[in-house]
């Protein structure tokens, strides 16, 4: 085999909570592959041998930066390569597409037996929402409670219940094309920023 093996690894930070694949191509003897992680951490490396080119799957359950040292025998000598991997913080709540038609809408669901977040009563927030379509609803509504609202609101309520996984209070913001579904920000600056982001006119 001519040439050196090639290592294909993520160049950007990988998020916590998954696997980062490192593929080694062009090894003349895959069975000679060895690896270690420096410094030693709880990072675990799994290998996949069912292909010609081995893949190391690195569990990214620990935040930080470390080196993966890979070695193999090539042409009777030790070939060695170092890959630096960065595992970043968990991703923030990814705003999933919230296809709630009908222009700008905001729905917040909360447990009315729990104390309400003060941000719900903030005059600046309410001034922003004035004359817009927004609601703060109890999370215990059943179908009969929603019989007088449009399918759009029903869909938003259903989405909030599904996506919140019990987290309260929860907010859905949508402009009909895109939106966010996430825990309600606890301060008014963050909430207003979120609302303005999707209030595209």
């Amino acid at each position, binding site marked *: 085999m001519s040439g050196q093996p090639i290592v294909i690894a993520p160049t950007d930070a990988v998020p916590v909570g998954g696997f980062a694949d490192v593929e080694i191509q062009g090894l003349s003897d895959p069975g000679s592959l060895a690896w270690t992680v420096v410094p030693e951490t709880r990072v675990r490396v799994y290998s996949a041998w069912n292909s010609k080119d081995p893949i190391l799957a690195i569990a990214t359950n620990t935040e930080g930066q470390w080196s993966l040292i890979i070695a193999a025998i090539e042409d009777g000598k030790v070939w060695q390569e170092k890959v630096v991997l960065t595992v970043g913080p968990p991703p923030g709540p990814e705003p999933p597409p919230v296809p709630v038609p009908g222009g700008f809408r905001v729905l917040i669901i909360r447990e*009315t*037996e729990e104390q309400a977040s*003060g941000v*719900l009563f903030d005059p600046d927030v*309410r001034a922003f929402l*004035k004359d817009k379509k927004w609601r703060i609803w*109890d999370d215990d509504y059943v179908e009969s409670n929603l019989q007088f609202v449009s399918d759009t609101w029903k869909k938003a309520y259903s989405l909030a219940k599904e996506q919140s996984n019990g987290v309260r209070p929860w907010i859905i913001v949508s402009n009909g094309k895109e939106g966010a579904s996430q825990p309600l920000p606890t301060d008014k600056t963050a909430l207003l920023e979120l609302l303005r982001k999707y209030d595209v006119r």
Partner: protein
Amino acid sequence: MYVSQFSSNEIIVDDDNFHRFAEDPVVGGEQMSRGMEEWRLAWGSYASVPQSLMIPRSEWDERIEEMERTRSRISDMTDAVGNLPVLNQNGTNYCWINGVVRCFELTRMVQGEPTVRLSPASAGGPIKNYRNVGGWGDEGLDYIVKHGVVPVDLWPPNAIDRKYDTEESRKKRKEFMVPEWTELRPRNEDELISLLLNRIPVAVGFNWWRHLVCAVDPVALGRGQYGTRIDNSWGPQWGENGRGILKGTRHLPDGAVCIRSVTPGE
């Protein structure tokens, strides 16, 4: 220690001057006097305010100061909305249902529902077989929970008249019901102030006044004393835009109910 500031126009009712208000000639309405034991008999037992909503007294001053400073009280929200003036029972004896319906309107506002003015007589009339008599907040709320209340475009607010009980109004009242509510223990200041700090208006009935109103804000009076700002149902000419302050033992209700959520509307 924090002390709320009041405007010079606000009526303040306390233990020294309450006699003047108890005999107020414009009362026109009455809350029948019911003693503590009668309340227990009426309710069987109290469904007290959920513990999760209770706020310790040690936090009251700070929270009241914050909601006044940030203008995030129910009265502030009402003023900002601008289209929810206090109710006017207009000489009827229906204060007991006006106070509950006012709580309904304010809960809709807090919830972000569009303003719809609601008719107290559409609930009070059927309860009292269309007689112009006093009643209690809990019976008013009980009726609204089961049957709802009708907007004023189908039933004028003080029309104690069965001619408005039409097929259309019966259908419409189903849109204005109450899925979540709470009864307070009589004369329990901890429950009353905790609910108001959570921006949950409370229909409060007073034996001394033979009257029921809607409590909207807590107020701090200093030295561990508290009171409540009320929306009365005597029109905006009473007090300051229809509001006043109750303090001392005068603000402790002999009967009280609140609405935690209303039927969502379009």
